[in-house]
């Protein structure tokens, strides 16, 4: 059944191709190693899910880190109690994040606008503090939840008799989830998540969410109950966050409360706005850019810069290197901050808007050259 237009099919295939070929085209950019690409994919999932809530309904949650954290805890507990297989871990992560999202969403969605944001922030900080205090038996507080050799791993132990030394690693039916196999696992899930998000955007349900963002009054007087629509969107985006959290645990099987801190919630807001709120690929772009800055750009030190500017005469390079050095390495936050300010002011639609403007500009410039117009038809010549 061909349910979506050709445009969407190509968009989806293009997205899948770009994600799967990341190990190739990221090499010249210095990011072609699996750990980082895994992070791109995981935070891409986080941001795509966040965008289903923020992009479609306009409800800005400042508490999505709570779902990320719960996803991680649930996944690590699944590793400890049942099996090192990642499938149950991911399912538990999604399930528990969904449950928490239902509770937080049910309460927070009684208010809108800034009050909604504050409520979600409060609930997330509450979760964060609970993880450090009352819930220590579950979360292991400051130490964080880790694997240990004494873990029961009930399902695994049914099949494997021998006791190995050292901690087991996460697997997908025997394939170790480290290095490239780990990345491809996350990449496939990311592509799946993108597909689901695209379907939601193009569905009647997605139209309802856009209606909520556009005019809630009209929704009500049209006979639509907005609350369950918003709650469903909230739970879906919470589940995306839980999925991302559980994948973080798949790559590195430990979970700590710092994952739930408000800065992590803020980060996903930045990713979404930077890439383009309410667009399909924007959140992925934003997530990739921020993670790239955090991991690669921050590694550029003065040695790298001196090499890069070695073509300049020494007298010039001595001035240029320290100035540029302010913006890279430890100063990457500064660059990101400036970029963020510039984008919010000049491109409210984020990178996606910038790209589409660029495309429009190029098309306009190309047309007189490549078009079928005869020279005498061209105006002003």
């Amino acid at each position, binding site marked *: *059944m061909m*349910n*979506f*237009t050709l445009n969407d099919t190509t968009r989806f295939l293009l997205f899948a191709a770009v994600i799967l070929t990341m190990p190739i085209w990221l090499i010249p950019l210095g990011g072609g190693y699996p750990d980082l690409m895994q992070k791109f994919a995981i935070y891409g999932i986080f941001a795509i899910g966040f965008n289903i809530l923020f992009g479609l309904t306009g409800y800005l949650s400042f508490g999505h880190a709570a779902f990320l954290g719960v996803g991680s805890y649930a996944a690590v507990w699944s590793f400890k109690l049942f099996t090192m297989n990642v499938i149950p871990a991911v399912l538990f992560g999604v399930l528990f994040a969904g449950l928490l999202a239902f509770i937080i969403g049910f309460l927070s969605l009684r208010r809108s606008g800034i009050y909604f944001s504050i409520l979600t922030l409060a609930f997330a900080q509450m979760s964060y503090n609970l993880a450090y205090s009352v819930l220590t038996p579950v979360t292991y507080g400051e130490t964080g939840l880790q694997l240990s050799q004494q873990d029961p791993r009930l399902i695994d132990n049914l099949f494997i008799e021998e006791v190995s030394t050292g901690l087991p690693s996460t697997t997908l039916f025997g394939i170790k989830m480290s290095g490239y196999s780990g990345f491809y696992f996350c990449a496939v899930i990311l592509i799946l998540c993108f597909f689901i998000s695209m*379907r*939601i955007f*193009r*569905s*009647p*349900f*997605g*139209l*309802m969410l*856009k*209606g909520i*963002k*556009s*005019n809630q*009054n*009209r*929704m*009500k*007087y*049209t*006979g*639509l*109950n*907005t609350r*369950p*629509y918003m709650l*469903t969107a909230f739970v879906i985006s919470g589940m995306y966050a839980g999925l991302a959290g559980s994948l973080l645990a798949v790559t590195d099987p430990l979970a700590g409360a710092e994952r739930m801190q408000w800065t992590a919630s803020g980060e996903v807001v930045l990713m979404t706005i930077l890439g383009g709120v309410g667009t399909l690929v924007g959140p992925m772009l934003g997530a990739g850019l921020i993670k790239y800055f955090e991991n690669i750009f921050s590694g550029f030190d003065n040695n790298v810069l001196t090499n890069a500017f070695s073509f300049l005469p020494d007298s010039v390079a001595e001035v240029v290197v320290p100035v540029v050095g302010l913006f890279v390495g430890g100063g990457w936050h500064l660059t990101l901050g400036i970029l963020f300010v510039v984008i919010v002011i000049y491109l409210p639609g984020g990178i996606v808007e910038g790209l589409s403007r660029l495309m429009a500009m190029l098309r306009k410039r190309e047309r007189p050259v490549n078009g079928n117009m005869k020279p005498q038809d061209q105006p002003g010549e």
Partner: protein
Amino acid sequence: MDNLVLHLDNINKSFGGLKALTDVNLQVEEGTTHAIIGPNGAGKSTLLNVCVGRLKPDVGHVTFDGQELTGKQPHEIAQIGVARVFQTPEIFPEMTLLENVMLPAFSKRDGAFRMNAHHQLSSQAEIRDEAEHILEDVGLKEQMLNEAGSLSRGDKRRLELGMCLILHPRLLLLDEPTAGMSRHDTNRTIDLLKKIKSRGMTKIIIEHDMHVVFSLADKVSVLARGQIIAGGSPEEVREDERVKEAYLGGAH
């Protein structure tokens, strides 16, 4: 007179010390157009707000076709079949005209909430056809892929009317549907409202423009200072001394 479909019984509503509506009683016959006229601040919009559930009356009841509307949520009242065109058009400005009209069509088909994320808009041919049909009725089909926010005020009103019509309401409430329109646009809207008159829905219309009232209404009620002071056929009301006084007020 058995086919009275809307009953407003003894409606009272006050805001603080201000009595907006006092003992308002109103019956509307099924399939007719009932105009409510009155000077500014007479409580006309408050009356509509009470009907659609935006406001809860302090005293009194609203019943539609035997169903109690008082105390119900706006979306529940809308699902019963009461639609409203607002004084300032309530549309979805960021969406295309087509989407603006398709959205209510889903409300009509699927009810107040349905989790239909697995379907795709592009596969809903029936809804799309119906929406295009309605847009043709209100004269906006050529622009159906434009953003609704870019429409002129008159076109926005027509769009909102289309969004209400696709709900196939049994009662349509129109709050000054021609306010701020040019004479030409007003006449077009009158024609449109006359066209839908034949569909047998009951309409309540609030209007200042007497030309519109006399073109459309079967019955007229006059509201002044929160009370209904006169009612009857348009001709009767026109001749009523109290009405003249209410409109001219203490001006002389």
